[in-house]
């Protein structure tokens, strides 16, 4: 089952920005399912520590991440030297989604890629600089 979509759950342990009821509800539903999954205490901490486990997640094929905003998750992994593959990755935002919506998205095998597109902005001072 090498290409089976993996699930990564972030508990955002060191902040209260993800509603407690949402993260507890999503974790409970994962535990009630038969799914194998990875749960981490805090992706921010792992990114700051450049934890090599981030590379394991980023390189293991299709991945669903239950965490926060896709833009933040994309650059947290990049800062942790583990850039995510845009085609393989779906971020489920527990700051905005309900328990049922988040758990439902994790339970689906197909990955709906939703990381922001890569974009190279003009550098400050360059002649081609344009307003955003």
């Amino acid at each position, binding site marked *: 089952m090498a290409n089976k979509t993996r699930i990564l759950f972030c508990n955002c342990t*060191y902040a209260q920005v993800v509603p407690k009821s949402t993260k*507890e509800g999503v974790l409970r539903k994962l535990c009630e399912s*038969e799914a194998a999954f990875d*749960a981490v205490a805090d992706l921010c901490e792992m990114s700051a520590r450049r934890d090599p486990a981030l590379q394991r997640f980023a390189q293991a094929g299709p991945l669903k991440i239950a965490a926060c905003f896709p833009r933040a998750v994309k650059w947290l992994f990049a800062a942790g030297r583990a850039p995510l593959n845009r085609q393989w990755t779906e971020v489920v935002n527990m700051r905005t989604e309900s328990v049922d919506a988040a758990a439902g998205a994790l339970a689906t095998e197909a990955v709906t890629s939703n990381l922001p597109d890569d974009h190279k902005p003009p550098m400050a001072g360059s002649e081609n600089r344009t307003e955003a």
Partner: protein
Amino acid sequence: MSLEESRSLRVVVYEGEGSAPLEAQARYDTMAALLQEGYSVTRTDGRQAVSPDDRTSLLVMGRFGSDGPPTFEGADEARAVSVMEIGDRDPESITELVRGRRDEIDGFDHGAWKPWFPVIDYDRCTNCMQCLSFCLFGVYGVDGENRLQVQNNDSCKTNCPACSRVCPEAAIMFPKYRSGPINGDRVSSTDLKREKMKIDISSLLGGDVYQMLRDRSEKAKSRFSKERNPDKALNERKKCLTKLAQSGDIPDEVLMSLPAPDEIQRRAEEAAAKADKARAAAMGNAD
């Protein structure tokens, strides 16, 4: 030991062949307790490889019963894999055992540092170095190609998002911040206008946020020296700090920890010089 050098312990809840599965409630209680303590936890049915990474030790736990645990590939001292029978233990005693294992391997003490630091959105960053010249705490630097980077994330002041306020492109995120776009939410055109407006406001305040801080600090100092009633002086200080906090969204704790005005000036000049040098070098690279 730096954050990057620290070693972590990952717990694997093994429910595959050779182990009886946990009840859903026990599984949830155990995982929630371990996550709260800062550990990473993998639940596996044995069909996935759970090999450790560099700097990661594995603790495989399960209900292995009287036959004992199965043999795990790579489970030896060299690969830092250990196995634990949990039987009917409650989450607290499991957590206690895991803590003991963490101490044995001198693992990272999770929770000692709140992970608050800037995360750069390089899809937006234009390398203007405003953040580098703004930050007094040496959080920012440049890489070998003179590209802005976060170099000392543990030097960042907890809950202070001030550098993101000076970024004209809303490219600096603090994922644990309460609102967008600083928390990583999409950047709208309204957000961008607001970010640019904040720069204008800082210009109106004298063109230099730190000059404003210095002026306020000097005024406050002079007020305090004239003020003989300590309660009134304290109230005045609180009022002054509240105004500053509101204008820059800087937490009181950070303002209270700012160094003396002349030290602020020295660090601001140092940061500005660092930014100027990086900007010049980056422009040189671009030519």
